[in-house]
């Protein structure tokens, strides 16, 4: 589904991504993990063709992102870190606009809007202006926007930040429901969440991928010191302190 080769990204002289290569197969749920500023968002922005990579290639579903960006964008649903909402539109108008610009055929627009309203549990606010909604609702409208054109690939940048535990659970269930049909990439720094939904994790540290492993294998590798199975949190913290030492 996704193949990236040696992506690097410079912002001025700052190198945000260093030689990032990975492959993601169809139907996988992959979690991007990393500290703040590690390059997760930059990587996602490159995959969604919002930012061009400084070098390297990205192939999504057989198309090169540098050449066939438009066809690729039709296949991607993207939720940026802050949900991109037009505050003074109503939820329904906003979703209609999203459907229009994402090539949903005119005849299907209405049923697609109804579908996402239901899937994201935002039926009851569909006539409200977006600026009056609480953060959790805004986040769900953001997800609704991302899945309105039934994309093959869903990219979610911190989809659960700022939500209460119940909403958190709802969104996790939503992602699990989606899983059967499509590939999902999500980033978060709430590690327990990843443990529950992802199949595979990519841990990014200062622009480099330091772990690319299926979750099962990662968590089965016994911890040297204690000989018990570590949690993802322990693995994460260990990796980050380890490589700090390496740099010093």
């Amino acid at each position: 589904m996704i193949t990236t080769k040696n992506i690097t990204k410079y912002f001025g002289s700052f190198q945000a991504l260093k030689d990032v290569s990975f492959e993601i197969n169809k139907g996988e749920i992959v979690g991007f993990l990393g500290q703040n500023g590690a390059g997760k968002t930059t990587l996602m922005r490159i995959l969604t063709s919002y930012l061009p990579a400084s070098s390297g290639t990205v192939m999504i579903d057989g198309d090169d992102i540098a050449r066939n960006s438009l066809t690729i964008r039709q296949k991607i649903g993207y939720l940026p870190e802050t949900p991109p909402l037009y505050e003074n539109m109503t939820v329904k108008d906003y979703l209609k606009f999203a459907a229009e610009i994402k090539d949903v055929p005119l005849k299907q627009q209405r049923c697609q809007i109804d579908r996402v309203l239901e899937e994201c549990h935002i039926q009851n606010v569909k006539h409200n202006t977006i600026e009056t909604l609480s953060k959790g609702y805004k986040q769900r409208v953001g997800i609704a926007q991302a899945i309105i054109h039934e994309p093959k690939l869903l990219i979610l940048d911190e989809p659960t930040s700022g939500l209460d535990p119940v909403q958190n659970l709802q969104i996790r269930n939503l992602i699990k429901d989606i899983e059967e049909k499509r590939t999902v990439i999500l980033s978060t720094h709430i590690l327990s969440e990843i443990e529950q939904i992802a199949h595979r994790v990519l841990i990014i540290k200062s622009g480099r991928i330091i772990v690319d492993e299926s979750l099962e294998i990662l968590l089965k590798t016994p911890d040297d010191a204690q000989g018990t199975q570590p949690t993802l949190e322990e693995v994460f913290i260990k990796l980050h302190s380890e490589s700090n030492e390496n740099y010093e």
Partner: protein
Amino acid sequence: MNKVFAIAKKELLTYFKSPIAYIILILTITIFNIFFFMIIDQNREVSLKDVFQVMEFMFVFLVPLLTMRIFSEEKSTGTIEFLMTAPLTNTAVVLGKYLGALIFFSIMISMTFVYYGIVEYFGNPDRMTTLTGYLGIWLEGAFFLSIGMMTSSWTRNQIVSAMTSYVILFLIYFSISFTAYFRGPAEIVIRQLSTWSHLENFAVGIITVGDVVYYLNGILICIVLTRLSIENRLWR
């Protein structure tokens, strides 16, 4: 093409869903009304020629207020990321946004048709001059809008966007005042650059190819530059 209309519709929707659109329309027409009364009261002439001149001058101040948010707001709220990752060409985004602004501006202009009704009722104005006069100020406004949209694509700050378009509009509008200090080709260039020299003809009922080309070219150049600045993302 459908997507261009979808974006234009969204632009208008965001205007009219908030009170901003109505406030702008009412205040603008109020300003125009005051000038209309003053001019008619003073000139006692059944012609809208001077009214058009004042409207043109007011556009220099009004248009940046309409256009400053076009791209700047999308950038500061992050919705630009939504537009740029949707399957839309940059051209469609720019054209859609321009069309939206143009429709709003046309609604604003059309509210002044009532002036023509008033002079028609009390006298016998020259219909042709009024018509060409309207075409002139509409083209002028359309040109100013494209300049405003261009400056809006350069920055995420609405105030900076408005101030930049004020500078450009003032330079273009008043460049004719500088002609006295230049000779030869430089003088001609500066004279032709000024919107003053082009709007004159429309106001007296003459449509020349040169004037129409001036405005259409200006609009085209600004739209192309806007598209380039969106594409290059200079603002990142």
